[in-house]
């Protein structure tokens, strides 16, 4: 288990990831941004469908997380609230499939604050390393 390198897909909105994306890949590495996390930037997290989140698991990732604006101050009013509901729907589906629902999370962060953005990536990396590979990969444990 010790050599397990998680594959984590992060969907983030344009605003919450602004500063992080400005760092560039080298800058992110120096800051300690986990290599396990692939960033997918969307105009608004409200645009992310449940099917997009499930597709990530079908593609074989170990975990997914979404970073959107604070609940009460989304640039598109309710985008991050919608995203949170969709994340919750996938959490429920994972539970029904008897898979740890912590493999998907929603984070609401202030716009462009890099340290917090970095912290949630590290939090997910740490948690998934502990959980191990996703059972949805169909690989023997």
């Amino acid at each position, binding site marked *: 288990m010790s050599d397990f390198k998680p594959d984590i897909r992060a969907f983030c909105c344009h605003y919450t990831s602004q500063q992080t994306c400005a760092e560039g890949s080298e800058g992110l590495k120096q800051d300690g941004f986990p290599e396990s996390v692939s960033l997918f930037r969307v105009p608004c997290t409200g645009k992310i469908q449940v099917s997009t989140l499930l597709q990530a698991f*079908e593609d074989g990732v170990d975990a997914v997380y979404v970073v959107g604006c604070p609940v009460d101050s989304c640039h598109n009013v309710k985008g991050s609230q919608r995203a949170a509901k969709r994340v919750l729907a996938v959490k429920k589906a994972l539970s029904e*499939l008897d898979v740890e629902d912590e493999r998907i999370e929603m984070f609401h962060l202030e716009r462009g604050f890099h340290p917090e953005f970095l912290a949630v990536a590290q939090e997910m990396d740490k948690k998934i390393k502990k959980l191990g590979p996703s059972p949805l990969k169909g690989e023997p444990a």
Partner: protein
Amino acid sequence: MIIAERKPIAEIVEMTRNHEKILVLGCRGCVTVCSAGGEREVELLASLIRLGAKKDGRKIEVQEGTLVRQCDKEYVDSLDNWKGEYDAIVSMACGVGVNFIANLRPTTMVYPGVNTTFFGGSADQGVWTEQCAGCGDCVLHLTGGLCPVARCAKSLMNGPCGGSQNGKCEIHSEIDCIWQMIHDRLERLDRKEQMLEVAPIRDWRTAGHGGPRKTTRDDLTI
């Protein structure tokens, strides 16, 4: 419309366990409107079935399709589009759709992907409430347009009962007593005296208590 909700995914994975090729089939009728079994929900269920199989180490092919309606023979005929591509269907239509496929495809295994719950309407975004029980002998002209068969927990014809408290039902305290609502509405319409008429004992045969129901319109049959 007919309201439905998706069955728990574990139940669907279990019922389809012995199949290797599944067709998840949606319906563009009521279940699309109530977000239970339209194109979008088909996509999600197909994905969940694939993930469930993968988790169990099983191989499965899942096709996705959505018919205009599953309650008409001519639309069910278009199942031929997926001929040879499935050995079982998970229908996301209401129970009528599942029955129609079972009636018309005697050798095809069909499973329900949703629980069909009631006839209702959209009360708010994401909220549906029962409004009609399809009892076959409508009394809405006597009750101000509000249905005591569907909306009274006891389907009383002469209400309210003693359990009506402060306008709420004793069975579900968050639900308005429909007989209180009927009374208030008839009063507003200046027809309160209708409440004094005692409804006779009802013949429930039209409500399905006389077996499966059928409607035949001579003017439409050829």
